[in-house]
């Protein structure tokens, strides 16, 4: 994340694409649960990033910046996809919250399926932290929230994952996160 990029330089954006695209793609795969949708969102995110590349400021890492665009697009994509399906809409009216039934995940405890049941912002925090190795500050820059909100999201994501996955699967207590647990995270 510490690579030097020049805002507005097409060559530097090509370099950013080569290094960040696989990581962004995997983040979106964890959020969306489908490689085709992840690729579509990732490409759209790089298109949007390329249009705004001249306005990028080096105070935030370029990969975190493009991650922020990609996560926002994944959130919009999941929201639209959820509203497109009538069954999912009815399910949402009857049981607001998750688009995928947690009981279905419990019968087939797959980690990516479990991540898909999480709200996109929580899933993104988990992937950025435990797969890409971002710290709270970098996650905050990538998601456009404060570090305290990042800690709250990580804690709530861990609680939901622990409820869905194998109880023997080790997740440390929420107190391990440094952020204030009393803060409520902003979820749509």
């Amino acid at each position, binding site marked *: 994340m*510490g690579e030097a990029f020049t805002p507005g330089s097409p060559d530097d954006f090509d370099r950013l694409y080569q290094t960040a695209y696989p990581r962004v793609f995997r983040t979106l795969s964890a959020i969306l649960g489908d490689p085709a949708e992840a690729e579509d969102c990732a*490409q759209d995110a790089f*298109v949007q990033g390329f249009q705004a590349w001249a306005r990028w400021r080096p105070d935030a890492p370029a990969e975190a910046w493009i991650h922020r665009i990609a996560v926002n697009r994944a959130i919009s994509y999941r929201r639209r996809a959820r509203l497109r399906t009538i069954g999912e809409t009815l399910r949402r009216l009857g049981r607001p919250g998750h688009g995928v039934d947690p009981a279905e995940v419990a019968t087939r405890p797959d980690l990516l399926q479990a991540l898909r049941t999480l709200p996109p912002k929580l899933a993104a925090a988990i*992937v950025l932290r435990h797969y890409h190795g971002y710290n709270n500050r*970098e996650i905050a820059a990538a998601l456009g929230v404060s570090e305290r909100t990042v800690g709250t999201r990580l804690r709530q994501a861990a609680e939901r994952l622990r409820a869905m996955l194998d109880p023997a699967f*080790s997740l440390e207590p929420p107190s391990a996160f440094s952020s204030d647990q009393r803060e409520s995270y902003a979820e749509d």
Partner: protein
Amino acid sequence: MPKIDDSPLGPGFESRLRSALDRVQPTFSSPRYMTPARRAIRVWRLAPAILAAMAVLALSASAFAASSGASPAVLIHRAASAIDSAAHAPDTTTPAEPSTEPVQQEPAKAAPAQSSPEKEAPPRQEPSESPEPTSSQSPEESGDHSNTGSTDTEPANSPSPRGD
């Protein structure tokens, strides 16, 4: 990429997450952010062909309008000419009347010939000819023949009613 500040979750979770996400291989298709520029280049390359097609369409439309008159201007002109022809319809039908007029004029010409030849002359000529012979026999000329004239006109020679 800096190291993680702390590791709140166990290593089992991270390894499981890593193995799950590493199985997902990104498909390195052509970057979509390069597509709009290429599309713009293609559009500019097609611009002469598009302009030529538009010129051909304009020429064909103008030629069709000039030849067949399907354009609104030609239709309006035709409508105006039709209205003008309808408005002057009585003037145009007069040439058909001479075929009927001679039939009506023949008895009109024959009738004066049978009645009297005096009616053939215009009526203005009759007063001009008739007063001339009567003007010599006017009462103004009769004054000159007063001595030889009649006796009943002047009461001077008549006896007075007094009986002197």
